[in-house]
């Protein structure tokens, strides 16, 4: 009994460590994914979907319109909901994302916003998230560089 009593301090310390570890691992408000996962998902499997692919999609999906409501250029889609980028992580919006069935498709008139949102959601462990590309792949170089054959060292 005396031995157990003298171990009290040690047990107490261990309990504190254990509580801290559990609190950290179960904290919803932290990124836990490997950052490399975002790069691999974006490059190898592709994280974009075209308008045509969306039109022909047979499985369930939810389009997240990231534009502000006052954006008149914003296209309207079926099965869509408006979540402005600034309020993406609000509790109510996290609930919508958690309950979404099938693919989550991010749409914004500004591809930069959709890209940043995709990385944030990927790192928050949301899988099945795609960026809706309204134009042909924006990462294709649209021009052809014409070298100047007379260029030389001056």
């Amino acid at each position, binding site marked *: 009994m005396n*031995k157990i009593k*003298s171990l009290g301090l040690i047990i107490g310390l261990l309990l504190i460590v254990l509580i801290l570890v559990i609190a950290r691992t179960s904290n919803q408000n932290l*990124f836990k994914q490997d950052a490399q996962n975002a790069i691999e998902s*974006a490059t190898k499997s592709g994280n974009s979907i075209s308008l045509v692919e969306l039109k022909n999609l047979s499985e369930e999906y939810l389009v997240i319109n990231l534009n502000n409501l006052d954006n008149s250029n914003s296209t309207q889609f079926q099965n869509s909901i408006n979540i402005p*980028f600034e309020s993406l992580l609000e509790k109510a919006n996290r609930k919508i994302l958690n309950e979404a069935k099938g693919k989550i498709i991010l749409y914004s008139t500004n591809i930069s916003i959709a890209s940043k949102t995709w990385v944030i959601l990927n*790192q928050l462990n949301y899988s099945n998230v795609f960026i809706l590309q309204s134009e042909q792949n924006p990462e294709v*170089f649209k021009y052809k560089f014409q070298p100047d054959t007379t260029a030389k060292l001056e």
Partner: protein
Amino acid sequence: MNARIKLSVLLVAIGILLAFLPFNAAKSFYLKPTELLLKSVSDEIYFSVDQVARFVNNEDSTIQLIDLRSEEEYKECNIPGSINIPFADLLNPDWEGYINQKILRNIFYGNGDQIANSAWTIATGLGYENTFVMKGGLNEWYKTVMLSEFKGERITPRENVIFENRFNARKTFTQINSLPDSLKMQFLAARRLKETQLDGGCE
């Protein structure tokens, strides 16, 4: 129970606790989601192509342009002074010294806005500072800087400054990208020397 035994029990118990923790060698984001979102909504992370053209013309040594495109695309043409870190290779430890530093301002660019913004979010999430994006990417650079022309009879002083900036950047871009790789560095060195002589300075 003496202190030595107590300490031994404590260390063994901590060891067991650590042994059962999930091993995670992954590189996770350092910022909290709300902190990253707050930084992401800011427009201060962007430089326009005209600003980047000015950096190129001035050979600004406080910036580091990072071309995120593939090696083949980079070899075909790139913004003078840029280094090539393909997006797929962004977290390669070989590049960490370039990306994770506090001295230079890193400006990411791709052909469009998608990969540069993804790279920015990843780098910023990992806590790397001084990270920016060239808005519009190389497509915007080409449209604005390479294909710019002045139409009209009169030019205002402001328009003239903008046009001259674009014209000089275009000239450097074309000259350097027309040279074989081996001569590109020599060209930059020669140009620096010429400017020093024009300024009346010495090497």
